């Protein structure tokens, strides 16, 4: 009996602080996002008024919000496709071929992932600078640059952000897939090679199916983290500009909070929450396959 009591004391002491912190700084705020979305609450008005779904109705009629959702979806979908396509192919090459300096490439490809998004946006503002940025000065070798390309202008700003996001993410996923691909037994490739299967066939028939579980999990998390990363990039690179052309939903939520419209801002938060859950459930469903083992 005495031992039992000591065990309970020990467990409580160990688990309680983590649970408490988790509850105060994650559960309560999450709950508050949903609760406050049903209220009207302003920065200079301490009172809350219950307004039901009025905030959501206003959202549907808000063109800025619609555009920020469209931008977010565009950024998430395009960066996911490009990043996954490239990192799978590169990882496939690096694990299957005998490449000199493989370690060097691995180290270099991972570098963008350890940099702050603020640093990356600083680097890319040097790349995108219209007058004598790195990119325009290279393009200037091939064409007349009296009318410089405005990478952060209204038309190209989304493309520019996508390039920066892919630049940041590609190495991380490559290194991850290299690890899981190298676990695929060599004998499978050898017998496939004897049967006359070429590289492409091997890649699509052996490599991809065998690491499918890994691809699925990472894809789900990548999409969720990309909703957030899109915000981090937009906030640091353009603040949503010019004229809101690169605004994303989280950034719009943030700017509504700065404007003091807390209830409205949280209604946007709810939409983002539900959207990210729905999207990851959808991805999970679409990518469902029979698990293969080696």
């Amino acid at each position, binding site marked *: 009996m005495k031992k039992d009591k000591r065990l309970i004391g*020990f*467990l409580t002491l*160990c*688990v309680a602080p*983590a*649970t408490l*912190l*988790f509850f*105060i*700084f*994650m*559960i*309560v*705020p*999450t709950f*508050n*996002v949903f609760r*406050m979305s049903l209220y009207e609450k302003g920065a200079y008005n301490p009172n809350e008024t219950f307004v039901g779904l009025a905030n959501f109705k206003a959202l549907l009629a808000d063109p800025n919000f619609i555009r920020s959702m469209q931008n977010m979806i565009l950024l998430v979908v395009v960066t996911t496709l490009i990043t996954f396509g490239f990192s799978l192919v*590169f990882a496939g*090459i*690096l694990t299957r*071929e005998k*490449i000199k300096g493989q370690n060097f*490439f691995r180290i270099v*490809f*991972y*570098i*963008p992932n*350890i*940099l*702050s*998004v*603020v*640093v990356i*946006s*600083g*680097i890319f*503002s*040097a790349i995108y600078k219209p007058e*004598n940025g*790195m990119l325009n*000065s290279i393009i200037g070798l091939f064409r007349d640059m009296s009318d410089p390309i405005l990478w952060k202008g209204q038309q190209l700003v989304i493309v520019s952000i996508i390039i920066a996001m892919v*630049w940041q993410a590609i190495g*991380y996923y490559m*290194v*991850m897939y290299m*690890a899981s691909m190298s676990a695929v037994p060599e004998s499978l490739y050898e017998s496939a*090679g004897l049967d006359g299967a070429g*590289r492409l066939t091997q890649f699509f028939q052996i490599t991809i199916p065998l690491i499918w579980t890994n691809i699925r999990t*990472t894809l789900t*998390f990548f999409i969720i*983290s990309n909703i*957030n990363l899109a*915000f981090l990039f937009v906030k*640091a690179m353009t603040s949503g500009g010019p004229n809101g052309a690169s605004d994303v939903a*989280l950034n719009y939520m*943030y700017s509504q*909070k700065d404007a003091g419209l807390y209830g409205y801002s*949280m209604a946007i*938060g709810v939409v983002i929450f539900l959207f990210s859950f729905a999207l990851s459930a959808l991805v999970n469903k679409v990518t469902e396959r029979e698990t293969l083992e080696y």
Partner: protein
Amino acid sequence: MGKTNSSSNSGERLYKAFVYVALITLAVVILVPVAWVFMASVKQNSEFYGNPWALPEGFYWQNFVDAWNSANMGSYMINSVVVTALALLILLIVALPAAYCLARFKFKGGKFLNTAFMAGLFINVNYIVVPIFLMLRDGDIWLKKVFGEGFLLNNLVVLAVVYAATALPFTIYLLSGYFQTLPHDYEEAAYIDGAGYFKAMWSIIFPMAKPSIITVILFNFLSFWNEYIISMTLMSSATGQKTLPVGLLNLMQAQQSAAQYGMMYAGLVLVMLPTLILYMCVQKQLTEGMTVGGLKG
């Protein structure tokens, strides 16, 4: 594969060449912009109006002195060091015992807590930063009423606590994953030798978990050091303390009108240098450790 038929030999060569060209291109695309910033950080302001690829005329270290002193990057750096270290300390003290208990003991509510922390993996901090800010602000208003002073906002310690708290789900997930793999014999033997629960955890299990703990420290160091949204929101006072990335962001925005390029790039170098140095030292641990976690918040 390295297996070649004599008929496809030239095709094989061509493929290999293509692979190298692609890999080198990607490496160049990553390395050159980073190296360019280092180069730009020692250029004089007048050099920024010409060819961007020109090498610096000399090492103009004054940029770093200016960034460190007049742009306050020095004190921001100290703030960042304090917040990051404190947050890591709190995180380890809180997460290690919790992960250990959740992974290795069956108790009432344990399953529920495990599920709750797992669900926490799906809550992104930036979704909930506004309610956290409002909660702390309301706390400050209340404290002001009772004690005449609020201290929750613009406080480095509170920022560190928030960092630690929001890193809990990922950290506990990663650590429990490791603790689950250990056989129970270790503690059984310790108990027979007369060790208590705490002693068994502290002196038998934790030392074994060292590689996982290092991985946890590395990943969280990077995310705390580089974070800027929470820091910007909770440390919003114009005159108050700031962390390094927020200070850099302000510097970058001010630079657009003041055109002090050299100082800005020196600031960029100051922010990324610590992470790059750390990466050089532990790149193996980092690129291997990520397969343990397999995900990123």
